[in-house]
């Protein structure tokens, strides 16, 4: 009999699952972690729900960092943000393997291990999305001074990009809204950031754009157009580097065709 720990599809959820699975003392071969719960139950499996628990997750995080290093933790945090049915179990196996190594730090290079490799690949995918959003996020200034922006990524990257913007714009009030998940990273000037669930976007946008907003957007479009070398125009290359899915909220592409070279 295998016990499947079903966890919420968040870092906290998965790490709580790791905690519970370990704590069950059933032996690693008798437990499995899963973030999917599509009612598709397998025979000879017993399913238990785990409730996300920050305290348990924190304990796991501390252990990972201490025994396997920051890099391993970063790898897990990024991988957890990417949609994949196998990731929770892969993270669990990676942690188990890492804790059994004489030097846990080596785990991040252990690419011959299939589950570590999956975590590695998911990390890479999520990192690409997060890193792109660090550049592609477009803040619009609202009348109340708040900087508002919107993203719509395959991976749940809010918590991965928020620290970057918090460091960059410490004195601003800003919000990054995740269209797909209806949640937002919100930053208060001089304080810090947090993730808010079930956010009402319209309410955030209530104040409307600031007086200067339209002018800066226009200036940005002027710049964006002027900086391209006409003789070397290459829409295909531009599209491959900046795929359409990212352009949705970028004002320099905010014309019907989504192309910058059209007025």
């Amino acid at each position: 009999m295998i016990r499947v720990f079903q966890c919420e599809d968040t870092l906290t959820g998965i790490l709580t699952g790791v905690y519970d699975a370990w704590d069950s003392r059933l032996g690693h071969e008798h437990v499995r972690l899963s973030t999917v719960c599509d009612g598709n139950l397998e025979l000879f499996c017993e399913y238990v729900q785990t409730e996300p628990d920050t305290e348990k997750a924190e304990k796991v995080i501390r252990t990972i960092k201490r025994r396997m290093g920051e890099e391993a933790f970063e790898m897990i945090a990024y991988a957890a943000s990417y949609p994949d049915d196998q990731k929770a179990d892969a993270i669990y196996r990676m942690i188990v393997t890492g804790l059994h190594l004489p030097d846990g730090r080596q785990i991040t290079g252990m690419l011959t291990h299939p589950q570590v490799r999956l975590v590695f690949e998911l990390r890479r995918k999520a990192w690409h999305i997060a890193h792109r959003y660090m550049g592609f996020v477009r803040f619009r200034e609202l009348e109340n001074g708040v900087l508002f922006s919107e993203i719509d990524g395959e991976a749940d990257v809010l918590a991965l990009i928020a620290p970057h913007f918090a460091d960059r714009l410490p004195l601003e009030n800003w919000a990054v809204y995740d269209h797909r998940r209806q949640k937002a990273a919100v930053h208060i000037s001089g304080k810090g950031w947090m993730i808010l669930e079930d956010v009402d976007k319209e309410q955030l946008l209530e104040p409307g754009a600031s007086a200067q907003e339209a002018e800066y957007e226009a200036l940005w479009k002027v710049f964006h157009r002027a900086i391209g070398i006409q003789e070397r125009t290459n829409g295909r290359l531009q599209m491959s580097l900046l795929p359409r899915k990212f352009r949705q909220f970028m004002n320099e592409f905010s014309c019907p065709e989504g192309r910058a070279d059209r007025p």
Partner: protein
Amino acid sequence: MKYRIEQQMDLREKLGILADAAKYDVACTSSGVERKNTGYGVGNCIAPGICHSFSADGRCISLLKILFTNECIFDCKYCINRRSNDVPRASFTPQEVCDLVMGFYRRNYIEGLFLSSGILVSPDATMELLYQTLYKLRREYHFQGYIHVKAIPGADPVLIERTGYLADRMSVNLELPTAEGLRALAPQKQRPKMLAPIRQVYSERQQNRQELALYRHAPKFVPAGQSTQMIIGASGESDWQIMKVAEHMYRKYEMKRVFYSAFLRVNEDRLLPVLPGGPPLLREHRLYQADWLLRFYGFGTEELLSEDRPDFNLLLDPKCDWALRHLEQFPVEVMRADYHTLLRVPGIGYRSAGRIVRARRLGTLDYENLKKMGVVLKRAVYFITCGGKQMYPVKLQEDYILRNLMDGKEKLPAGARDTSGYEQLSLFDDPRFSV
């Protein structure tokens, strides 16, 4: 009269003109410095840099790249802003540049500022304006994002020094790889004058490093280092001459980057060549690949080219080309070869080489593993064994490999593919290029 016209010009028009005039500078990276915000300003820097958009030619937009002014007292033949050209002219004020930088940065349009300039009145007067602009940004606006600024050759070293304490990167474009080229096409620029600020920044960076070793909080001088740019194909130099200059820049002046820019004929001038295929993009691409080989793969120019063989083979990337001429050093056993030997295998990039070295300590590798680690087996297969075995039987024979490599179609960036196209290649910063 002209002055009045400028007065009436609004910021959008100015920005249009001065961004357009700056677009031929290829350096747009914001890389090389890691800096957290102090908590009371705006901005930080991320070592690998961040792309904020891509322009219609497919180049990364990271910095607000502008000229302070496109007025110029010089008359460099290849330059759109030369004195003798009849183009609309404009100049910013330091305040306007600050407004643009802060407005754009807060909205996350940019990583920072790239500020270049034509020579207004004199090198000193121009440098002074650049300095004032940076001073205002850093001291009044507490801007902590990335700043790349030009050092104007011929300007007072004191001004250059002061500016260097406010900037992250400084650059002087060599433009033409040789003194002869410079004499022909940019008669007012002299080689020694252009090298002077490069040398100054280099030696002050050395000094600064010692100060920083003593006092951790000493102000930093040009922390992201220098870069430069050369135009390719305007004045008849060979690849060997170009790479020699680049190598010299890296070794002697610790240059962080040398950029290559395929010559684009923006002016009608009988001294400028007419290149039938348009800008030599494939050649530019080969130079970038070779540049990676110098910087990350431990190659020297002399290994790749020589006086008798002064140009790269356009049909083959420089690493494959080198490997084919050195078959006696292959095949390489992936489980045993050291890092530096792995680096020289076509199809193995420096990241995959690093991954191989780490992973093989913990287990035995097979070809599937290698593929997952980013090794391009299509190319590497001729040059490696893994656990003593070839992936499939291949001959270690020049013609045979060459034929197969050419069949396998190299993944060229769009635009470099056929030399007649005017398309742009752009992943300057992508190490995958030189795999």
